């Protein structure tokens, strides 16, 4: 039973808005550690807690109100110069935000928050009193937290009385603290030490949540609730409204023309008007599609802003000095993707902080600045969003990665010998591969990187690694702008059409059997000096090659360029992807309906290549070889 019957809407609104606010506060706290005297920061943090307190009051979340109130008081003194920020104080403040986050997650589950750790409350009060803050001690004899103020009207001054009074002598009734609450449940969070705790605190999730721990697409109940609403810029909404109005007008025009035509008018003028109206409708509908799509687009900064705190806490835990630098926060990305990216990015940051960057001593020895920088950057490149997680650490050692994979029996000797650097880096995405020779607390459980890749691929994205020994490692995530509409090229095998993402298509060329050459046992073609492998679609799909493909589609992915050999093609189309929820054959991203009503499978080229690609890289593709005779002969 929810504690918030009748207030669910309000609660959801509050959680979304206050959650954003708290993430902002968290980031400002990380900044505050560097600039402890920045008045703007202090003011903004003060206002953050103040606002959360105000909202929480309406939800009757008294414990949250109490905690925010104390923290707010502390910041009030800090911004008035009565107190100065100390590192012990920072710890208390950070713990308090963690506790606030924890309370949010309790609210999210429809229960009133439990009281904060009495020890935390006590330390906050000590800090407010301007005394040196004791280091976190686990729940000592709990002194009852005094509610400093009483919400509600009971102690409000008589306004009229006051109004007349202030002109002369202020005579306000003292606001009395409520009697202390006697029994307090000791539940609050233990001092933060476990990395899972850090992440849990920072993002308000259960500790068992790991990247990929959730079933595909299956989000936890509480989150699903929260995910259902979206904040949209009113300007964008207005545009949608405007366009649908315009479409209405065009529809009226078409109706009028239809009556005209049905009543026998079919002169050039009428037909021309019809042509014009249909053309206009076409334009408007595609504008509307874009506008609707835009309502789903959210700045990725909303996701990014919770990471500096996580990075800080993790680094501190490992005794490292790491700064997470954010860039491109304004880059917009589909909302569903933002949610699904959260965990993979956490994992990459965790990986960078733990494995990527060296400790201070090693950095000093290598002549690097002691403070390491991890960059989290997003930008739009064409119709893709690229997200980078880059560290300035020691870089990856291809040799060692191969040895490790070999030792774990993930690859064979032969495979190891034929791998280039990039392929070696990609070994860390294999299930069961753990990079750290010594398993540390923070990462290196051998679970994770493979799940990161799986999760990215679920979003039709790809992940790649660049690394330079001694200089650092960069993870590059590439994602489509949106998942809903996909421009595709229709190709045919025999009579069967397939759709391939247009974004990967560079050009279409005829295949002349004489130009197909065998290089290293693989069919290739030379296009403007570039030697490209020829991969027959039939072969990739595991079909019998019935005839020699006539056309090649030059396709380009982040990893490779190749020529997809097909029988014929049927043009381009804007496919609205219908996903196959329960039944998803490998290599099929979804289905779409053509204008003539025919159903077409949309191929997930990365997955289609996946099987062949891994083999090509590792064991030589038998697939391509098998089809060469059919092609050449």
């Amino acid at each position, binding site marked *: 039973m929810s504690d918030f019957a009748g207030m669910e809407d309000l609660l959801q*609104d509050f959680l979304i*808005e206050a959650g954003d*606010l708290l993430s902002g506060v968290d980031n400002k706290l990380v900044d505050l550690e560097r600039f402890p005297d920045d008045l703007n920061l202090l003011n903004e943090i003060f*206002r953050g807690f103040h606002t959360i307190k*105000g*909202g929480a009051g309406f939800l009757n979340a008294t414990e949250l109100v109490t905690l925010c109130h104390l923290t707010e008081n502390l910041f009030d003194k800090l911004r008035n110069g009565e107190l100065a920020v100390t590192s012990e104080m920072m710890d208390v403040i950070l713990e308090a935000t963690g506790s606030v986050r924890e309370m949010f997650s309790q609210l999210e589950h429809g229960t009133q928050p439990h009281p904060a750790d009495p020890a935390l409350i006590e330390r906050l009060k000590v800090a407010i009193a301007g005394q040196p803050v004791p280091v976190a001690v686990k729940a000592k004899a709990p002194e009852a937290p005094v509610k400093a103020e009483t919400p509600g*009207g009971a102690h409000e001054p008589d306004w009229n009385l*006051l109004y007349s009074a202030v002109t002369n002598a*202020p005579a306000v009734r003292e606001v009395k603290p409520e009697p202390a609450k006697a029994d307090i449940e000791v539940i609050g969070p233990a001092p933060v030490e476990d990395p899972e705790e850090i992440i849990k605190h920072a993002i308000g999730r259960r500790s068992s949540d790991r990247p990929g721990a959730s079933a595909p697409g299956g989000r936890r109940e509480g989150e699903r609730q929260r995910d259902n609403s979206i904040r949209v810029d009113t300007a964008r909404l207005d545009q949608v409204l405007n366009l649908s109005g315009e479409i209405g007008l065009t529809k009226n025009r078409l109706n009028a023309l239809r009556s005209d035509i049905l009543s026998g008018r079919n002169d050039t003028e009428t037909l021309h008007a019809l042509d014009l109206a249909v053309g206009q409708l076409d334009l408007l509908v595609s504008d509307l599609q874009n506008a609707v799509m835009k309502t789903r687009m959210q700045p990725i900064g909303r996701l990014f802003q919770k990471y500096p705190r996580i990075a800080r806490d993790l680094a501190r835990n490992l005794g490292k000095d790491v700064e997470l630098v954010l860039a491109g926060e304004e880059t917009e990305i589909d909302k569903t993707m933002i949610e699904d990216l959260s965990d993979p990015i956490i994992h990459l940051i965790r990986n960078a902080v733990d494995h990527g960057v060296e400790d201070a001593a090693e950095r000093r020895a290598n002549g690097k600045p002691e403070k390491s920088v991890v960059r989290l950057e997003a930008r739009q490149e064409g119709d893709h969003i690229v997200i980078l997680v880059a560290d300035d650490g020691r870089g990856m050692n291809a040799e060692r990665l191969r040895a490790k994979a070999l030792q774990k029996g993930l690859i064979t000797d032969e495979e190891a010998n034929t791998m280039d650097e990039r392929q070696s880096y990609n070994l860390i995405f294999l299930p069961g591969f753990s990079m750290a020779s010594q398993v540390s607390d923070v990462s290196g459980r051998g679970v994770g990187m493979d799940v990161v890749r799986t999760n990215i691929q679920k979003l039709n994205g790809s992940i790649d690694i660049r690394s330079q020994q001694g200089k650092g490692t960069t993870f590059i995530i590439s994602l489509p702008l949106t998942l809903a509409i996909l421009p595709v090229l229709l190709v045919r095998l025999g009579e069967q059409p397939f759709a391939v993402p247009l974004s990967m298509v560079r050009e279409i060329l005829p295949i002349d059997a004489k130009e197909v050459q065998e290089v290293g046992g693989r069919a290739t073609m030379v296009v403007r000096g570039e030697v490209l492998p020829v991969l027959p679609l039939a072969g990739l799909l595991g079909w019998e090659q019935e005839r020699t493909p006539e056309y090649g589609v030059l396709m380009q992915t982040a990893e490779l360029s190749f020529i997809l050999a097909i029988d014929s093609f049927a043009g381009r189309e804007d496919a609205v992807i219908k996903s196959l929820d329960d039944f998803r054959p490998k290599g099929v991203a979804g289905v779409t309906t053509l204008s003539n009503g025919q159903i077409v499978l949309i191929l997930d080229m990365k997955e289609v290549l996946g099987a062949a690609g891994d083999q090509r890289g590792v064991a030589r593709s038998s697939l391509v070889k098998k089809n060469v005779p059919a092609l050449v002969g």
Partner: protein
Amino acid sequence: MGDPKLKFLVVDDFSTMRRIVRNLLKELGYTNVDEAEDGAVALQKLNAAQFDFVVTDWNMPNMDGLTLLQTIRRTPQLKHLPVLMITAEAKKENIIAAAQAGASGYIVKPFTAATMAEKLEKIFEKLGKTAA
């Protein structure tokens, strides 16, 4: 009871709070409500259109509620507007500051529709007296 056609401006940087206040006003029968996210935006709106009542938060970025109130009282064409301050602050000095700046009323969060009705009633009463 005031005229249900009265036009309210609700000023708060926290949209959840604006919604709460808007809902409470609606419960009381006032449906003509516009919103502003800080004092600066509120002033623009007040200068651009006719409003009958301002309900404002105290702590806001750009321009806080107290400054908004002071500015309203200084501006000849706005100074008669009733301004109800809503804040989470129940500190004596805040209440005094609001009163000195010429607030028509002061509500401490959280509050119910009944509290709000009572406050509005008092303000209307006083307005009625001055008008009469």
